[in-house]
């Protein structure tokens, strides 16, 4: 970046597009060397957690780039979130470069560099604002595309089962209703839950999903259920809540504050509940045409 010389700082980053772009965009006017670690296109924090942004990778990159011949100082600036995978003391031992952890966000780098490489508390704390939560929603929905395709086929087949063994008309009619309910469940768990996260009651995400799924279940019951019998109405309400609860629980992987111990704790409670509710919903839906 710019026209760096032997005294210019060395900024280490990942080869994830957004990480790299964030770095480049905040650096106009600054002369620096960029050392890019091959994290197979994964962002800094995830790569650090999974082992591709590691002490070993940093040592290899320093070696391969012959950094010692490029700069006269012996300091590397790493993103703070790389600390999960990189041990500062081990890097120093391995290649002689001292590691300084920079701010969490690249946008704070200019201030960090100006401030004699000191980061204040706000630069070092991870946040999860509404905007940061909202940008994750498209990813969540995109990851649902393939399972949803499989679900559509299953829903149509199951919905056609009735007294006439299999009815294509019923498959379509009832299938559409069940798919609409699925869509409402997705809104509850993959859209409302992320957006309303800090305001949803309950600490466990599967419970938060039940809360954000409640208006969706109610909508299903009011809009699409009236044409159905009681068993099927109950099936739909259960299904919307199950889908919402499950997807909200899945959102734990996208947050910067859920501990694996906590997620395991809630999965041991949430999964059996979701499984039971799903089975009951399925049974009621299948029984509907026979009642």
């Amino acid at each position, binding site marked *: 970046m710019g026209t760096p010389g032997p005294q210019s700082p060395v900024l280490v980053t990942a080869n994830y597009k957004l990480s790299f772009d964030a770095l480049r965009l905040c650096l106009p006017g600054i002369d620096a060397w960029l050392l890019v670690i091959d994290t197979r296109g994964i962002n800094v924090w995830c790569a650090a*957690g999974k082992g591709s942004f590691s002490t070993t990778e940093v040592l290899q990159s320093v070696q391969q780039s012959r950094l010692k011949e490029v700069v006269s100082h012996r300091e590397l600036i790493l993103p703070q979130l790389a600390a999960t995978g990189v041990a500062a003391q081990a890097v120093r031992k391995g290649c002689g470069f001292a590691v300084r952890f920079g701010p969490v966000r690249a946008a704070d780098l200019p201030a960090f560099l100006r401030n004699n490489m000191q980061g204040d508390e706000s630069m070092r704390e991870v946040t999860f604002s509404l905007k940061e939560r909202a940008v994750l929603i498209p990813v969540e929905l995109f990851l649902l595309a393939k399972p949803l395709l499989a679900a559509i086929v299953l829903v149509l087949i199951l919905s056609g089962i009735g007294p006439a063994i299999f009815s294509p008309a019923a498959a379509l009619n009832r299938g559409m209703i069940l798919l609409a309910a699925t869509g409402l469940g997705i809104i509850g768990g993959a859209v409302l839950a992320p957006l309303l996260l800090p305001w949803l009651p309950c600490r466990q995400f599967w419970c938060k999903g039940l809360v954000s799924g409640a208006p969706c279940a109610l909508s299903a019951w009011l809009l699409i259920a009236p044409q159905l019998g009681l068993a099927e109405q109950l099936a739909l309400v259960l299904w919307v809540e199950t889908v919402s609860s499950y997807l909200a629980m899945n959102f734990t992987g996208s947050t910067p504050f859920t501990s694996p111990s906590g997620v395991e704790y809630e999965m041991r409670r949430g999964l059996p509940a979701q499984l039971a509710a799903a089975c009951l919903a399925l049974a009621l839906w299948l029984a509907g045409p026979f009642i």
Partner: protein
Amino acid sequence: MRGYRYIDGVVTLEVDRLRCVACGNCVVVCPHRILSLTAEGLEVSDRDLCMECGACARNCPVEAITVSPGVGCAVAIMTAWINRLVGRKVLSGCC
């Protein structure tokens, strides 16, 4: 982290104050700012805010901090459970 509390009493973070040499590495790297060095030594201000990322343990030169690091992701944990159940790696997770 402001406004976000997860589940209390489950975190595996352990600090050995006697081993600590007050280098300050852990204080710098914690993404939720729960570690600090006081006159009494290393303090954990709110252990339930710990997300077990492992940055502190990783950067402790004397191994005074231990934590079972991992990914706080339901899909990752489920994948691990299923793979363990089946006995081999049938699922690879999404990232």
